[in-house]
């Protein structure tokens, strides 16, 4: 009888302590995540202005219909999607190639991992400043591209031409994050059991067949993960574009959504409209996350 009572009170005590441990974090998220996201949606229904003393008017979805008619905002969506597709595709392909190549080496594996990962350690502002100089008309960008393409003395207008400046932001991002995703692929590769390859060897498979019929299918979960992670990261891009425009690059071709939100809120004081933009960004990202869940649920792999 008494034994049952003590175990019961231990259970009660454990329940209480469970709540005590999670409460601070829970309060934080209610205040700093859930409240702001509802507030952002709420604000997006008003014509709220920064520093305005007049109480904002409720205008229902007018901010959204304004944005959907605004060429400037469609330009931002275009810039964001072009940047995302143009960055994440090479990121995915090259990080996979790098991972496979590095893992096939017997020597210098560690060196390559650290070397490829090192740009991810630099802050994004530092990365943007370095590349600002590389993309200078007299900088390394022109020197190297002219060397590769054998076109001495040509200025490729890395930061001036509207197509080139988009390529430049993509290149910076690719350079900074390719090592990060390479490491994730390496982990994915390392988790494939060696016994599968040994079995394939007995069956007479060559390297190419190994890759095509074993490595690639088994890496599918990692591939999906990397593609969604890099996609979400690209959709949120801000620092590179911000610094390049500060450094004199034209704004229009690289006016990604986050940059537009910042300008609309801080420079134009249009808080309501900026909130509507960030809700649209949120919706786009939710859509991609939903895609991730759908595709990764569909094919759980067991070895």
């Amino acid at each position, binding site marked *: 009888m008494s034994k049952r009572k003590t175990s019961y009170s231990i259970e009660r005590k454990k329940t209480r302590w469970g709540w005590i441990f999670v409460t601070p974090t829970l309060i934080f998220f209610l205040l700093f995540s859930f409240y702001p996201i509802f507030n952002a949606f709420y604000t997006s229904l008003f014509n709220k202005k920064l520093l305005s003393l007049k109480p904002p008017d409720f205008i229902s979805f007018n901010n959204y219909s304004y944005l959907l008619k605004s060429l400037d905002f469609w330009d931002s969506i275009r810039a964001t999607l072009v940047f995302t597709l143009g960055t994440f595709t090479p990121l995915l392909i090259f990080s996979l190639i790098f991972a496979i190549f590095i893992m096939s080496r017997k020597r210098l594996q560690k060196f390559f991992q650290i070397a490829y990962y*090192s740009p991810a350690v630099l802050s994004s502002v*530092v990365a943007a400043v*370095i590349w600002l*100089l590389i993309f200078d008309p007299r900088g390394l960008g022109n020197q190297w591209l002219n060397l590769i393409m054998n076109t001495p003395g040509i200025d490729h207008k890395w930061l001036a031409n509207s197509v080139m400046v988009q390529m430049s932001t993509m290149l910076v991002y690719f*350079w900074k994050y390719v090592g990060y995703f390479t490491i994730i692929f390496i982990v994915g590769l390392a988790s494939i059991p060696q016994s599968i*390859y040994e079995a394939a060897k007995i069956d007479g498979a060559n390297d190419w067949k190994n890759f095509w019929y074993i490595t690639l299918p088994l890496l599918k979960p990692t591939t999906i*993960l990397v593609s969604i992670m890099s996609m979400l990261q690209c959709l949120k891009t801000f620092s590179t574009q911000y610094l390049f425009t500060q450094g004199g690059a034209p704004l229009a071709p690289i006016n990604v959504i986050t940059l537009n939100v910042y300008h609309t809120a801080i420079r134009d004081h249009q808080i309501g409209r900026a909130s509507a933009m960030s809700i649209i960004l949120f919706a786009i990202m939710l859509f991609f996350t939903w895609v991730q869940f759908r595709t990764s649920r569909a094919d759980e792999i067991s070895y």
Partner: protein
Amino acid sequence: MSDNLNKKKNKTSTQSLIIDLFIWIFLILTAIFILAPTIFMFTASVMPANDILKMPYRWIPKSIYWQNYWQGIRGNDGTFIYIRNILNSLIVASVVAASTVILSSLAGFGLAKYYFKGRTIVFMMIMATMMIPFEAIMIPLYLVTTKLGLQDSYAGLIAPFLVNAFGVFLMRQYFITFPDEILDAARIDGASELMIFRTIILPNSMPAMATLAILTFKSQWDNLLWPLLVVQSEEMKTIPLYIVKFTAEKHTNEGAMMAVAAIASIPILIVFFKLSKYFLSGAVLYSSRKG
């Protein structure tokens, strides 16, 4: 991964020798491309401006030109505000890292080792915040911060980052593997729950906590967007804001620009080379949060 296969073939076929050679060249050329900008930053930071944008670029400086570092630290206006800005970054990043580690391990422990009603819902709620990007909530946060008068203060810089869902997830995953028997034995010996947390859990979770601390510190060290919104005065700026401002100033020469960037990168690079396993495992841990 196919080492064993390669070993035998290398001796027999020239074709795979060529492939092998191709892979080496490819990897080395890529490594050069990836390392070059960082090396460029360090070499340019000790060159006079005229030498930096010269064709072809001289990778080994003729002499070390330290004036760039002096100009970077001193600033164009001679106020040495960069030192203060570095200090700000250190304070913000350290406080955020410490609070993230503490709150995440408390919550992670609670979620991993206590079976209370609503636990699943709490966990799902916390995980759901991962889907809310900071960029979507920065404006409401900014409005609240200004309303509370916290703009341009450490509190304002720190508050939105005290803990994050990834940290909670990471610590929970780590604690879940911890054997219940040890905790129960301590309870029978009369240890309180807090004592269990402090004397058993904390000392045994150093690797996970170090990884989390490094990742959090680094993400704050790099943070540009939030400080850009809430900081107004020169004194409260953090390193990224100083770099942005310094780069845009007329009198800044390219060498000083690189010196400022190098100063911001040296500490984090040293930590990276010393503790690369935590960084690399950090990348891995991030990836393990898949659905």
